[in-house]
């Protein structure tokens, strides 16, 4: 083991895994052939040594505790059902060191490549450069144009709203009239007779319709009796006999 590695302070390492890898490398054997047990012992010895001089970072201590556990598991007689299997854990630690080592080497190899801007260069001069001129092709069809004009014309053409004046007889008026007339009639009287005689044309049709509705309403209230012998036969009204 390299004595220097032991005397270097913890700040030299980026965490316990880094330290473990440094210790493993100091065994100067293939990482795959490394003795995990001796590696663990080195780490624990190193941490003890450091502990007297500086405050140990938590993660170093956590790793130390874990490695102490691993060490005892590796040394103690094996329980058949022990879980996790200490050999398996040792193997995982080894794999983990291999992985970090592999990435460290890969990084070094990357950095050693012919790098653009350091070893190889693109054209130095700003040069002509490439420019892209953007042009917008507007999409619109003749139909869009014509439809738009139709839309505008329709929208802005003076709008005419004509309310045709129409004489009507309201339901209220018909109710009052029919009710009043019934008061003075004793016999059956055709509904046409309840329509004001002066009304003609559309007004008469309106009055007739309103009077019919008035008759239905009065019948509902029990204030009139209705009689019609056949479809389209004259509709007769009279005051109820009480």
């Amino acid at each position: 083991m390299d004595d220097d590695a032991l005397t270097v302070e913890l700040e030299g390492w980026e965490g316990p895994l880094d330290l473990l890898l440094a210790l493993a490398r100091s065994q100067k054997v293939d990482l795959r052939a490394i003795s995990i047990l001796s590696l663990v012992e080195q780490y624990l010895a190193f941490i003890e040594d450091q502990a007297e001089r500086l405050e140990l970072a938590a993660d170093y201590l956590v790793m130390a505790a874990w490695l102490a556990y691993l060490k005892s598991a590796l040394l103690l007689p094996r329980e058949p059902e022990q879980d996790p299997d200490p050999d398996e854990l040792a193997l995982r630690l080894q794999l983990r060191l291999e992985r970090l080592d592999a990435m460290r080497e890969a990084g070094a190899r990357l950095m050693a490549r012919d790098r653009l801007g350091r070893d190889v260069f693109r054209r130095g001069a700003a040069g002509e450069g490439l420019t892209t001129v953007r042009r917008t092709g507007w999409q619109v069809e003749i139909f869009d144009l014509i439809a738009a004009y139709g839309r505008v014309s329709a929208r802005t053409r003076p709008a005419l709203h004509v309310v045709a004046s129409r004489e009507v007889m309201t339901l209220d008026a018909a109710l009052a009239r029919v009710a009043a007339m019934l008061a003075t009639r004793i016999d059956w009287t055709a509904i046409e007779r309840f329509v004001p005689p002066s009304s003609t044309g559309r007004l008469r049709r309106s009055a007739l319709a309103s009077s019919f509705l008035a008759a239905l309403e009065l019948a509902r209230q029990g204030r009139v009796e209705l009689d019609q012998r056949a479809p389209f036969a004259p509709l007769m009204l009279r005051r109820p006999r009480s």
Partner: protein
Amino acid sequence: MTPPDDLVRAVEAVLFASAESLTLDALAAHVGADPRAALGVLAKDYAGRGVELVRRGERWHFQTAADLAPLLRRTREETRRLSRAAVETLAIIAYHEPVSRAEIEAVRGVQIAKGTLDVLMEAGWIRPAGRREVPGRPLTYATTPGFLAHFGLASRRDLPGLDDLRAAGLLDPVDTVFDGATERLEKAGDSD
């Protein structure tokens, strides 16, 4: 093609990587030898290519061949739909030209956004068509030959008239319920 010797390669790389054109002295300092023979070889190697070795006064540099300049500028066409406001404005100009901004707004019943006429002008469909000799001397707009070409029209007279539009149902106001009387009134008013 014969692989160039080391000096030619060196001069080539130094010239390529340099931010500015280089004098013979500067080249010599970089490559550690007289670069003149190498420059001669390079000039021949690159003659007629897309990139050429050029001497300006006492300085040398590579540049793209002059005849290829247009390739370096690419025009990209983007197709976009014209906004509704722009289409309406274009339609009003087409039907009423020459027409001022205020007149367009009067027909549309809405103000024209700032960019609308610009877009139509940029598209090459309308052009300023002189000022109207009324107070304020408003600028008027009219369509261009490019407008006719785009819409496949031989002349503005090919635009469908109001009667055609009506027959096509394009004058029907969307939200109005017609009543017989109104319809008759409209027809009476429109007949010439």
